[in-house]
Structures are given as C-alpha cells and as structure tokens.
C-alpha cells in the first residue's frame, strides 16, 4: 500500500489543504513536523518527493478522484486554484515577507480595497453560475478544498466580515467545512488561521 508523508513546519499554512484532501478521501498519512533547524538535513532527503504545494494538491486530487469528471473540469479546477494563488501569494508577500513598513501598509491597503474584492467578486459569480455546492461540476474537487481553505485564511487573518456581500461564497465555504470528514479534521486539528503572529517561529 502506498505510504504518504507530509513534511512541513509546525505552522498552519499550505499543508492544511493536503490534510483536508486526505481526510475527505479517508486516506491515512504521516505528518512529519520539522523544526527549522532540522531543515538542512531534510533538504538532502531522497526518494519520491513532490514539492510545490499546488502541484501536490493537484496530484492528490487526481489520485483520489477529486479532480472533476473530465479534462475540461480538471482544467477549471486548475484555473480557480491558479487565480486564487495569485491573491494568496500577494497576502503572503505583504503579511510575512515585506520588511518596509510603509510599503507593507500600502500593499495591505491595496489588497483590501482592490485585489481581494476583485477576486472575491469573480469567485462569487463563478459559484453562482455553478449549480449545487461546489465550484466545478457536481462533485467535490480538490479546488473546492483549496479555495475554501484560502477563504478561511482571509476571514481569520484579515477580517471576519470579508465574505459579507458574497452570499454564494459564504454558502460554499460552509458547505465544504460541513462535510463530515472535513468537519472532523477541523475539530481534531484545531484548524484556524487566527493568531498567525503568535505561531510563526514556533518550532
């Protein structure tokens, strides 16, 4: 039987989407939490490794049949994940990587006033046009888990009211997090993006 290991730091982040995909598929995995100081050793680790979080989620989506019913639906999954990656990458950029305080405030302001609403509006319209609970087709896909995780990130870290004015997205996020296996994962793991400043640097 295939053995899966998720190797990550002890911080909430990109691995949450993988853990939720495993939960939905009811497939076990080993969580290998590494301390920052052990990272150099792990970099040498050989074997069948896959890096780059979206490619990992995409691979798991395919492996567990959570990638749409045909090539076009799979591509739509990719499209929505890619488009929201741009948004989250900008959030990561000003939230964690920007050292110039003035620039950080400027980027955050632009994010809240422009980038985030533009993206949410498009997602709202996409969700509205697709019948049912999900973003693509009729069944859950890895894109639903990925995007719901990102929406939760924004709600927890930016403002609890970010989804106000986007009723379809609120309904969508609730539908994903209400799935029994995901709800169970959330409860067991203490999943939240609140208090990020406190958990960063925790080894």
């Amino acid at each position, binding site marked *: 039987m295939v053995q899966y290991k998720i190797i990550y730091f002890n911080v909430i982040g990109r691995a949450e989407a993988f853990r939720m995909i495993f939960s939905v598929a009811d497939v076990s995995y080993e969580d290998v939490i590494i301390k920052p100081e052990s990272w150099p050793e792990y970099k040498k680790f050989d074997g069948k490794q896959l890096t*780059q979080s979206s490619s990992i989620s*995409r691979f798991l989506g395919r492996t567990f049949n959570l990638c749409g019913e045909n090539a*076009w639906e799979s591509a739509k999954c990719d499209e929505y994940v890619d488009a929201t990656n741009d948004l989250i990458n900008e959030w990561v950029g000003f939230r964690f990587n920007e050292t110039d305080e003035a620039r950080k405030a400027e980027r955050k302001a632009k994010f809240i006033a422009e980038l985030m609403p533009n993206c949410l509006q498009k997602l709202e319209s996409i969700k509205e046009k697709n019948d049912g609970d999900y973003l693509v087709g009729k069944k859950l896909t890895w894109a639903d888990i990925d995007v719901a995780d990102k929406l939760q990130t924004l709600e927890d870290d930016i403002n609890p009211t970010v989804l106000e004015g986007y009723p379809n997205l609120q309904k969508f996020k609730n539908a994903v997090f209400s799935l029994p296996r995901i709800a169970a994962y959330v409860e067991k793991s203490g999943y939240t993006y609140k208090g990020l400043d406190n958990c960063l640097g925790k080894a």
Partner: protein
Amino acid sequence: MSQKYKFLYFPMKAVGEPIRLLFHYANVEFEDIRVSNEEWAKMKSEMPWNLLPVLVVDGKHQLSQCLTIFRYLAREFGLVGADEFETAKCNEYIDAMDEVRLDVLQMFRESDPAKKAAIKKNVVENTFPKAWPKFNGILKRNGTGFLVGEGVTCADIYVAYMVDLLTGFVEFSTMSDYPELDDHRKKILNLPGIKEWIATRPYTAF
C-alpha cells in the same frame, strides 16, 4: 473554417509563448490571436479574470491562467508523464521554474534604475546559481536527456524556454557551468515544430 482552438495573448512571448510552443510541437492548428492595447481596453472586462492569456475552445469554452492552459493542452496533446506521479513531477518542475521567472519579473516591475540593477544582481548572483544546479541535477539523475521519464514532456518545453528567455534578459553568460541544462535547452528548442516556429515567428522583444 473556424479553428477548434483560439489562443488570445498580447503580441509578445513572455508567459504565452510556452503555450504556442505546445501547439507547434504537437502540430495542432490554432488561431494565434495577438491582442493590441486598443483591443485589450475594450475586451478586458469580458475576460474571466480580466487577464490574458485566454484559450477559447470550439468558439465558446473559455479557459484562463497561463499555467492552467499549458497543463490542459499538455494533457490533450499527450505531453504529460507516463503516470500521475510523473505528471505531478512535470508540474513540480514547471512550478519551480515559474518561481525563478517571478524573481526576474521583479526587474520589470521596478522603475527606479538603482533598485532594478540590485534586483538584476540578485538574479544573477543568487536566483540562477541556486536554481540551475537543481535542474541540472534532475537531468543528470534522470539520465534520459529529459526531465521526466523517457521522452519530451511539457516540463521540458517550459523549462528550456524559460532558461533561454530568462538568461537572455539578464545576459547571464555562464550557462556552460550547467552543461546538462544548457544542452537540454538547445535540444528542446531544436525539436521539429518548435525549431521552425522559432525561425519564423514574429519578432518581439520579450
């Protein structure tokens, strides 16, 4: 006769060209639409994410996001791995190369000449010397002359194209330090279909 595929992008190579390369390598016809600034001003609000490139299939189905389009066509044209894990490795290498591209892209986003020069210096002294050995190592370990498996995949096309484009931008002159990667770049850009297209495509600076 209208084409099954219409590909809309600006008159440049940048992130649209890898998709054009896929069509030419797979020998699949498509309408190569180059959108001018005036046309874009009118079209922008109608595009799904207000961005180009966009692929239109059968005149009505639209797909956005350059890597999504690239991956979708790679699958359609049989240029993915032999199994899902190999395909995922293709995706991993494409993603890793895209991170290199984003570092170089910062040069174009910066207008201040001193800051721009600093970014270029970082690319030449840090970004490339960290990334190229990794790709070189992958080629060496795979041992087939290709990044994944035994033949050409979309990862080869994306990586070879970007190595060529990005090293050209910053006039990086030491690719000979990465012989497998340099040979790979030359080999892929000389593949039938790609070679002819490169020789005859409209000239663009980027």
